[in-house]
């Protein structure tokens, strides 16, 4: 799949290009540049974004005991968007740097994760909590619209394109930072598999099994914020992956054991985004298909399917 992805695109590369790019990199050879600076980051970002968002979704779904939870639905994405909007639209140079953008998105994700967490301490009903998440999302959406209408065209443009979502914006030298954020998040999730499994039985039972609920919640929100924040900073808000993939993984792997679910989400999330992006690459010469539109095109019918199959 990775090889197919790397080899497909509007410009055709062949194996010898790749081999020679590895052996003797030539900064003036267009094919070498395409391979290293375009295809490799794009492929890596496809996999990482799919995996990270799927794992975030899994964490949220278990924490809230609701298969319709996800970073997007609960307003964590919107939080990251809001802070990025604030930074990009105000145009302060520090914030528009890579570091500023990523810390802004992280901060936004953490902030709004904490807000939903705060509500979750007082509201037992998951439906009410989802409703609050949706309210936060639309509230933040309105704030962003207001910000947009007040900002200059140039800043507005860079924010608008950021909000479309993109797997192609990342440069080769930014990959280590993103990879680091994702690995921290994945390892953190791996360490949480035991309490996650206990949480399947609900909070009371989990607590009677010795789980410290409060610190568990804080860790889950923090890890989700790291994963969602890192990906959102570089790829923009990508919808539906976090909601649909964990459900798909449960159906495919037929398990609730989070050790397998985590691996499954890493795998299927990565493969899903890689497939989506390969399809986009293949149709590039014929029509324009933004990644965010494509994931939603797949995601929306899938949610309907979940509801129809009464998996809730």
């Amino acid at each position: 799949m990775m090889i197919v992805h790397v080899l497909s695109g509007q410009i055709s590369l062949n194996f010898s290009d790749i081999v020679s790019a590895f052996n003797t990199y030539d900064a003036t050879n267009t094919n070498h540049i395409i391979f290293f600076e375009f295809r490799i980051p794009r492929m890596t970002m496809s996999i990482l974004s799919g995996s990270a968002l799927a794992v975030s979704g899994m964490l949220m779904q278990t924490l809230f005991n609701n298969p319709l939870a996800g970073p997007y639905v609960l307003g964590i994405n919107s939080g990251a968007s809001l802070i990025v909007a604030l930074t990009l639209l105000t145009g302060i140079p520090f914030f528009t740097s890579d570091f500023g953008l990523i810390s802004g998105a992280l901060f936004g994700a953490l902030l709004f994760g904490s807000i939903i967490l705060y509500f979750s301490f007082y509201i037992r009903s998951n439906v009410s909590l989802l409703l609050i998440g949706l309210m936060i999302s639309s509230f933040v959406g309105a704030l962003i619209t207001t910000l947009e209408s007040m900002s200059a065209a140039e800043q507005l443009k860079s924010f608008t394109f950021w909000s479309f979502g993109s797997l192609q914006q990342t440069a080769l030298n930014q990959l280590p930072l993103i990879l680091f954020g994702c690995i921290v998040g994945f390892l953190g999730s791996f360490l949480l598999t035991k309490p996650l499994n206990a949480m399947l039985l609900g909070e009371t039972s989990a607590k009677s099994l010795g789980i410290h609920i409060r610190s568990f919640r804080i860790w889950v929100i923090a890890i989700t914020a790291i994963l969602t924040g890192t990906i959102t900073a570089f790829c923009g808000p990508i919808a539906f992956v976090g909601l649909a993939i964990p459900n798909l993984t449960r159906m495919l792997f037929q398990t609730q054991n989070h050790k397998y679910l985590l691996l499954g989400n890493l795998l299927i999330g990565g493969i899903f985004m890689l497939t989506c992006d390969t399809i986009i690459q293949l149709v590039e010469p014929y029509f324009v298909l933004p990644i965010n539109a494509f994931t939603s095109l797949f995601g929306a019918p899938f949610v309907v399917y979940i509801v129809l199959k009464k998996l809730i």
Partner: protein
Amino acid sequence: MDKVTRMNKVFHLFLILFFATACSENVQVPLSTKKTTNYARFLTIRDEKNGVYIDIKHPDRKNKEYKFFIKKDSNGKVPNDYIEIKRNNPSFIVFSTTHIAMLGQLNQLKTIKGTCASNLIYTKEIRKKIEDKAIIDFGNESNPSLEKIISIKPTAIIYSGFSAEFSKNKELQKLGIITIPNFDWKESHPLGKAEWILFFGYLTGTEDAAKKHLEIVQEEYNRLKKSVQGLSKRAVVLSGSKMGDFWYAPAGESYMAQLFKDAGANYIYKNTKGTGSLAYSQEKILVDAKKADFWINPGSPSYELVKLSNPKASFLVPFREKKVFCYTKDSNKYWELSAIHPEWVLSDLITIFHPSTSKKSNLYFYHTLD
């Protein structure tokens, strides 16, 4: 033939018969004799004995035409299908800054009573009038306030027609306010775009000044174009910018492509079809622009901002060699004045592409990025 069209034909025949007998004057639409437009594709103006026929074609909807008529004899009749525009003491609401430039060129700024968003306007006089509340700022044309329009009661509303029809068309018709689309922005020939000044000329009775302006513009444009035709060295040009995941470049039959051609440049997508935009992946741009000398219209005023919206722009040769030009230092000036001064745009491009042959060094709209 179905029933409805047959009924229509009968009705038409009846109408023609009715007019032929009832009117003393022959008002049948004459077949093009005194056409005044040459380059414009969506505007035809015929200056006939009985009046001026203004036909505006919709760029995207094949059979859609807007027909307007200006009487020369106050006792004359308005031909079928035409809407009469009266031009005694005209007043307008205009929704594009090119309209302001055209009326300004004809010394008719006084006819403007309402405009599009003031932050897009270059002409100082109009901005001052908006500040003084002598002119109403209607924002964008998608949803203007009907109350404010009524308070002005203009002769006509001139709009760009991005969407199908003007939003309050039906209500305005009842009030006797005419709405006229202006498709100058869809014209693919720079001189065709400029010809829309004739439309404003006839609307305000200053058609002679409009023709005079066009004459000067055409002469200068053609002179500049000729001056570079013989040159053997043609600069390779890349244009457009990345939005989202795609690079949008002007197609081979577009306005920009025409300008590149007339400026003696070799535009990398000159052989593509269409008058709109091409959407290509960034990789394709990288390969196709391998030999590009210049990059025109990146959409941002500085290298830093270009890199922010498109980090991979740095792999493009013109970016590395700092040969990127744009009009974004004063975008309002460009959008307002470039339509009536295509010769200025051409002059800029020639100065950029052929620095050695051009005597002029100052640019009207363009600048290198900061």
